[in-house]
């Protein structure tokens, strides 16, 4: 059986008003259950209020400092592993999707025919491709060819450098930093 509000008044932190205190005293005279709550709560509350803060063990902070580099290295490995799993998983899923789509859309006989056809025409297409290259190469002025080559080389260097710097940053700080 619970006895609100008396039970609450006994165990709450707030100080009771004079009227509430008088009502509680009156109630306690006739209610053994609330007397038990009061007798139990007072020593418990005293112990809780007097309990000390347990100090951290000696060298706690030094141990944290020592483990920090190890934890950071583990976290970086975990992030790289997750990224690889994500990349690999995505490639497998895309490959599976394309394979299933191919099998559904094209019959096996037609697929084999297409492959044989592609292989048979490959030498002829290579010759056509070389002819196009030679033809356009002879038409374009040499200056433009040099500028194009330098542009492609420049962009390649910028992209590779950016990729390397990003890789180094992620390796040192992790993805979240």
């Amino acid at each position: 059986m619970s006895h609100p509000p008396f039970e609450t008044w006994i165990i709450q932190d707030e100080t009771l008003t004079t009227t509430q205190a008088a009502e509680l005293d009156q109630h306690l005279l006739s209610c053994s259950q609330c007397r038990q709550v009061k007798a139990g709560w007072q020593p418990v509350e005293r112990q809780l209020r007097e309990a000390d803060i347990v100090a951290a063990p000696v060298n706690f902070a030094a141990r944290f400092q020592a483990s920090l580099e190890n934890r950071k290295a583990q976290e970086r490995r975990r992030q790289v592993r997750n990224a690889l799993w994500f990349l690999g998983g995505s490639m497998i899923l895309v490959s599976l999707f394309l394979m299933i789509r191919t099998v559904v859309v094209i019959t096996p006989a037609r697929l084999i025919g297409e492959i044989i056809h592609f292989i048979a025409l490959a030498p002829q297409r290579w010759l056509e491709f070389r002819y196009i290259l030679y033809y356009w190469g002879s038409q374009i002025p040499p200056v433009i060819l040099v500028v194009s080559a330098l542009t492609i080389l420049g962009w390649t260097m910028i992209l590779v450098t950016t990729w390397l710097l990003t890789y180094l940053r992620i390796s040192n700080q992790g993805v979240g930093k």
Partner: protein
Amino acid sequence: MTTSEVDLLVAAQNGSDDAFSSLVMQYQNPVYNLCYRMLGNAQEAEDAAQETFWRAYQAIRRYDRNRPFATWLLSIAAHYCIDQQRKKRITTMEIEDWMEEVIPDHAPQPEKRMGDREERMSIQSMLSTLNPQDRAAVILRYWYEYSEEEISQALQLSISAVKSRLHRARLKLAQRYHNQQVALAERIQDESPAF
């Protein structure tokens, strides 16, 4: 928060490990105490406190400086300990571990040390009867003198939920203490010689 603490937090958020280490030094005792009171075992408390600081280190950039740092840190510790308790389903404390524990930093006189240990055991024994979230609320209320609002922020509960948890926990502690006293009185009575 003091100016130096704000400076440390800003530096830690900008990636300074030294600044974060200073914060660890500053907050190691409150965090360890919370973990110890929650888990009741010195080794588990140290592991939990170390994990708390590691989680804080990882999340320090997301910390909102308008919020008290201590509340944010203790919130991480409390949630970690609550999760640990749920995983392990601890219902009783490991008394042997308490007996083997070393009281850190200072070595008081044997009588006082025994008294401290007994008192600590008694408090831990009482706390162990509470469920993890009620225990966290009681610890934050009595060891850190947090208001109900601060407890609600730390434990991510509504204020009414905190009130109800504190009420339930206090009642349970009072009943347990009363029952212990009754049992003790009966035992003394049984052991006394009959003439």
